[in-house]
């Protein structure tokens, strides 16, 4: 069992680092998807560990929500790109003091 969890954690960590390192918003998004998938793997593994399907249901919901998130996120990226001709996350830094 532990190896599944370990794999999940490794993928999650890689996803995190990817979010931090990449500047292309779309790639950042992909990294987030990677993190979500990593958690899904953990869910499914736990489901098998515990012998019930609740973990799988959770993974299912994660997928659904991820789908919604991707849809909205990508459309935000598109509209930002339209406004700024760039999909770099560093360009949108209006939040700075």
């Amino acid at each position, binding site marked *: 069992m532990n190896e599944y969890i370990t794999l999940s954690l490794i993928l999650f960590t890689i996803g995190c680092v990817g979010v931090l390192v*990449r500047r292309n918003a779309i790639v950042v998004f992909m990294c987030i998807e*990677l993190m979500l998938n990593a958690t899904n793997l953990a869910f499914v593994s736990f489901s098998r560990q515990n012998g019930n399907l609740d973990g799988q249901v959770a993974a299912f919901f994660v997928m659904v929500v*991820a789908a919604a998130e991707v849809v909205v996120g990508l459309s935000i990226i598109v509209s930002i790109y339209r406004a700024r001709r760039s999909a*770099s996350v560093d360009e949108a830094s209006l939040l700075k003091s």
Partner: protein
Amino acid sequence: MTAFWCLAPIMVIAALGLVFARKAVHAALCLAVVMISLAVLYAAQGAPFLFAVQIIVYTGAIMMLFLFVLMLVGVDSSDAVKETIGGQRLAAAIIGLIFGVTVVLAVGQTVSGVVVGLKAANGNGNPYGLSELLFGKYVLAFEFTSALLITAALGAMVLAHKERLTTRHSQADISARRMREYAESGRHPGPLPAPGVFARHNAVDTPALLPDGSPLESSISDSLVARGQVRDGFEDDIDKVVEQLDDDEQGLGGEK
């Protein structure tokens, strides 16, 4: 377990590829690899339904969406190798390493106890068990996610809808503007030059060449320039063309 040990290295490598790939398209492909591998792992862990969903929704729908947007948005300088925030990469690497090692060593090894397995739960078949949970215990959450999806779809439509802020330019306007620009700044009023002129190829990624042999940037689509997909190695093309012309002339002359 065989599946796991086969797939796990592939997945890690693909994930690293996602982080390190220069081009977004490559990253997307790496991600697809991870996802498909995951689907297999789901199947191996007694989750055939999720296997299907993972393939259909993630690899099928979501990845397609990513690729489409990539096409739409194109590739730009944001993928440049140079980091803009000082120390960001180093810090991310160090923290990631610490985090990864910690969780892998500590958290990842803490799962203990007997693996129950899903034989009983999947007694009536995995989709049956899932649906019982979804429409029983989690029906409320299920309904909410459906609402969420609808909202997201609407949101995407609203966001993607481009509102026209200025009146549409008529053809007359455009031509008038062109002439004015020509008068004021001498900008050429006619259409942009076609690619491939005087070049050795006539594909769209080949710039037209000026008589002195230098490539003409404006003859190529901006997106290709942004993506760095302009064909290079045309410095001596003009010589070759001239040579070829000379040859032809000679050939013709010879015929004469």
